[in-house]
């Protein structure tokens, strides 16, 4: 039985309000059978310094990425991972993390690749939970291992590859990196380690909407009206558009993917996880530099 969604009125404005839960809802549902809380952070040790009581940890890098091939884990590894965290196929998974749920949204997107039905984000994430003075603990739970089925990852619906992007020209692209990365002044986010792109700039015609604009200062998502003003207004997206979002390795754009898909209700939004670390190093793909989107490649 699915666990009833958070019926907070402030979520009702969004296209899929069942994808968000509030801290109040989560506090009441800690320990509810069928709910597993998962923390996913940028920093691999942050969970260990204190987390929501009962929450388990899934690390975007060491758990969700294949250690050899540049790809996500396969169905078998995903099944083993989730089973070890006490998650079954029917579990309501509530994800939260640092930095306005940046990495939690990435984990949610990977869960979506595997078709996990009921996966939600804690609005405001880790920082707001702590800022509100709610309980944290360093006690690590030892969930009873359960069976999670081996399901094949579905890469066609919400994931885009380089060739998909090349075939997508003429449709909207959203570049969610910092303005300096977009214009080509630099290839990495300020103060992040160099991840190896040989060229700087953006994919032709991509609009620049840095991912963090979707988050309010307290880490919660901005209101539907504010999001509409950004994505439909400034970025010019229209209902029925096929959209591809990208960043540097696909994590920041997962956050935007969540906003466009679950909060604004766009269908067919894909995340190009190869992103700039692939595009900026690929031979002969078109690139535009400077602050404007540029023209369609001939």
């Amino acid at each position: 039985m699915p666990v009833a969604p958070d019926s907070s009125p402030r979520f009702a404005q969004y296209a899929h309000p069942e994808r968000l839960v509030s801290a109040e809802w989560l506090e009441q549902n800690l320990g509810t059978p069928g709910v597993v809380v998962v923390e996913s952070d940028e920093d691999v040790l942050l969970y260990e310094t204190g987390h929501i009581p009962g929450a388990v940890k899934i690390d975007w890098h060491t758990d969700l990425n294949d250690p050899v091939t540049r790809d996500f884990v396969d169905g078998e590894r995903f099944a083993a991972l989730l089973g070890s965290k006490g998650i079954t196929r029917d579990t309501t998974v509530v994800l939260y993390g640092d930095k306005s749920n940046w990495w939690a949204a990435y984990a949610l997107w990977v869960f979506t690749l595997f078709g996990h039905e009921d996966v939600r984000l804690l609005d405001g994430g880790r920082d707001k939970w702590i800022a509100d003075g709610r309980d944290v603990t360093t006690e690590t739970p030892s969930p009873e291992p359960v069976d999670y089925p081996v399901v094949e990852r579905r890469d066609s619906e919400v994931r885009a590859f380089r060739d998909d992007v090349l075939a997508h020209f003429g449709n909207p692209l959203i570049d969610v990196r910092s303005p300096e990365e977009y214009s080509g002044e630099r290839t990495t986010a300020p103060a992040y380690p160099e991840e190896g792109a040989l060229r700087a700039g953006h994919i032709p015609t991509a609009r620049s909407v840095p991912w963090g604009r979707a988050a309010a200062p307290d880490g919660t998502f901005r209101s539907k009206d504010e999001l509409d003003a950004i994505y439909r207004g400034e970025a010019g997206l229209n209902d029925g558009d096929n959209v591809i979002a990208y960043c540097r390795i696909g994590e920041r754009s997962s956050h935007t993917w969540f906003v466009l898909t679950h909060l604004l209700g766009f269908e067919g939004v894909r995340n190009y996880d190869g992103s700039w670390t692939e595009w900026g190093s690929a031979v002969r793909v078109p690139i535009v530099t400077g602050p404007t989107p540029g023209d369609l490649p001939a």
Partner: protein
Amino acid sequence: MALPTQLEQIKDEFLELGQRDRLQLLLEFSNELPPLPERYHDHPDLLERVEECQAPVFIFVEVGDDRVVHMYATAPAEAPTTRGFASILAQGLGGLTVDEVLDVPDDFPQMLGLAQAISPLRLRGMTALLGRAKRQVRQKTAA
């Protein structure tokens, strides 16, 4: 070339452990990072905040008249991994001579057996930090 004893000891501490415990040891280092000495509290660098910045980490290298190096660092509590890296380097480089610090292999972070536990990508943060420490030593000794 052999590592200085204190770096060798840190390396051995990590390599003796299984993957999960290596993460725990990194957390212990993180918790051990001493606060910045008083004299750096109002340092202008600390006011710099880069938009969308990964854990801002600040290091201050001092070289004494005896050419002995000391390193101090600070990083926010929300960045325990970065704090751990800084703490390893502060403990591992502190007390070495200028030449010993400059001779530390640039791939020292790769010797700690952390690639699997935290991912190679994250380890680059520590490599960058070691590079910054050495650069500061060079700047302070260039006369």
